[in-house]
Every structure is written in C-alpha cells, then in structure tokens.
C-alpha cells in the first residue's frame, strides 16, 4: 500500500521560522543571519559593526557555536545583549533554537539582531531561522572557488562580504575568478570587499546595513 505524503521534510523548522519572522516584524527588529566557514571573520565583522554603529542602533547578538563562548567573550566589551547557543556538535542553528532564546532580548528596544551561525557553508543555508536576510561572509584565504562550490548560499544571501582583502598579495586568490563565479550565480548581489583588520571597505557596509535597519 502506497500512502501519498507530499510534505516538506523541514516543515517543523519552517513553521517555527515563520513564527519568529512574524514576531520580529511586529517588534520591528531586523534579524540578520550571518553565514560563513570557520575563521572567515564573522566575529571580526560584528566587532567592527558594534564599534561603528553601536551608539546609533540598539543591537543584540546570538552566537551560534558548537562549543565554548569565545566569540561572545570578544563582543562583551560592547555592552550589548548576547546569547550563546552551543549546538554541541550540531553544524547549524535552527529556528527552534532561535525561538527559545528570543525572550532573553528586550525586543521592544532592539533595532537589529545579528545571528552568528555555526561556521559552515552548506548546512546553515538550508535552515530558515526567521531572519530578514542572510549575509554570506567569505575570506580571500579560503580561495576564490567558494561561490562555485556552494551556490545555494550565494543564491540565497542578500549580500556578500569578501574579507581579508589585505591578504590577497600573500595568497593565490584571483578576484576575477571569484567575481565571475559569483556573477553566474547571483550577478545582482552586493559585494563588499573588506578587511576587518585594517578597516578597508567597511564604510560602504556600515551605510548599507544602516539603511536596512532604518527601513525595517
């Protein structure tokens, strides 16, 4: 006997994500889901962003980490609410884990909530957290082949941060290959060439994200 099911396997995650999105939209909080491989510079980008925009906007951060609270420790000095979710081996955050920690934030006061997903380019792209948009962070030291290898993320993200551009002379990263692969997948996606260490290119990012927070 065959029984038709025709059901999305990730229905449970999707339903909760829709619920989170509706709560955040009601509270006028912009949630950004930051996705990258480990070490690309998600936390460094958050440090820079907190420094620059911390007085202009009320920010909160959810730190997704397999274990430890080291990333959260780095952001402590900005005096913003931070919640750590340790996935204990899990390679991505899901909407249920986000929903559970939302109560730790005063959503009436928050303008923007950055979610630093677990470092991984495949799995986090599949799990909607209820975010307003996904932000892909890649660094030049990882190589120029990431858009071609992980098309889903670069198709789904609303912007790409290319970090560590100051290190290009010391690597075999070819920007033309990177740009051309990205163009094939998502030619309209904004691309920010930045160095979180030196500060290159961050002005444009601050302007872009501030516009989105204002328009939420």
């Amino acid at each position, binding site marked *: *006997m*065959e*029984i*038709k*099911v*025709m*059901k*999305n*396997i*990730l*229905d*449970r*995650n999707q339903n909760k994500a829709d619920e989170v999105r509706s709560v955040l939209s009601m509270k006028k909080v912009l949630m950004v889901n930051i996705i990258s491989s480990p070490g690309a510079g998600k936390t460094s980008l958050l440090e820079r962003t907190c420094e620059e925009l911390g007085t202009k906007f009320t920010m909160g951060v959810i730190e997704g980490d397999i274990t430890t609270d080291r990333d959260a420790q780095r952001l402590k000095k900005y005096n913003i609410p931070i919640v750590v979710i340790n996935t204990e081996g*899990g*390679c*991505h955050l*899901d909407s249920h884990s986000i929903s559970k920690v939302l109560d730790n934030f005063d959503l009436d006061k928050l303008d923007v909530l950055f979610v630093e997903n677990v470092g*991984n380019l*495949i*799995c986090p792209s*599949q*799990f909607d957290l209820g975010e307003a948009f996904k932000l892909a962070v890649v660094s030049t030291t990882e190589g120029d082949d990431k858009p*071609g290898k*992980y*098309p*889903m993320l670069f*198709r789904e993200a609303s912007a790409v941060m290319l970090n560590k551009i100051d290190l290009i002379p010391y690597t075999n990263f070819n920007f033309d290959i990177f740009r051309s*692969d990205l*163009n*094939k*997948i*998502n*030619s*309209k996606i904004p691309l920010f060439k930045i160095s979180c260490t030196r500060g290159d290119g961050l002005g444009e990012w601050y302007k872009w994200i501030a516009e989105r927070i204002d328009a939420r």
Partner: protein
Amino acid sequence: MHEIRIAEDLSAIVLETARRENLSKVTKVNICFGQMIQIVPDVFEFAFRETVRNSIAENAELDIEIVPVKVKCINCGNDFMVEENLFVCNKCNSTDLGIIQGKELFVKSIEGE
C-alpha cells in the same frame, strides 16, 4: 552534516504517517531532493538508517529522486535548466530569474503493509 538533521525530521514524518495509517511495517520511503540542497545520498542513507533503527521503518528502502535546477526568466518568460551554476537566461541574457525547481526537500510517499 545537515543530512543527519534532515533524516531525523524525515523519520519523524514517516513514523507518524505510518502510525496514522495503522501500518505494521514501512517497506519504502520515496523522497525528493532538489540539487541545490546539496544532499549526499550515501550520507543521507546512512543517517536515515540510524534514525529508524529499531522502528517499523527499520528495513524500509529509501528512494531518493534528485531534481535538477530549473528557472524562469522574469524578463522574457523563458524557462530552462541551470547547468554549471550559470544563472543567466539562455535567450535574453537576463539574470532576473526565479527558481521553479531544484530546492525541493519533501516526502512524496511511503509504502508499507
């Protein structure tokens, strides 16, 4: 690694459906994955086996259909299959495209007795 979590959610749906339909054994599970989801079938099969161990779906055969990516051009209406991740209309060169298939992640049916 996302295969494990997706396999867990799949086995929950399979077992719930089997219970509702009063099946004593699930013999086959037919699922559909879009190419963009980047599921590795062997890894998924392994994860699924683990999640249905000691259940009525323990010996169920897993049939995975992989659906290629298809898009529709918003500019000229052309629909075409995406090859080698090239999201550019092959008629008018527009990059304004809507994905119409390739992101599937669903259970089509289960078979059992």
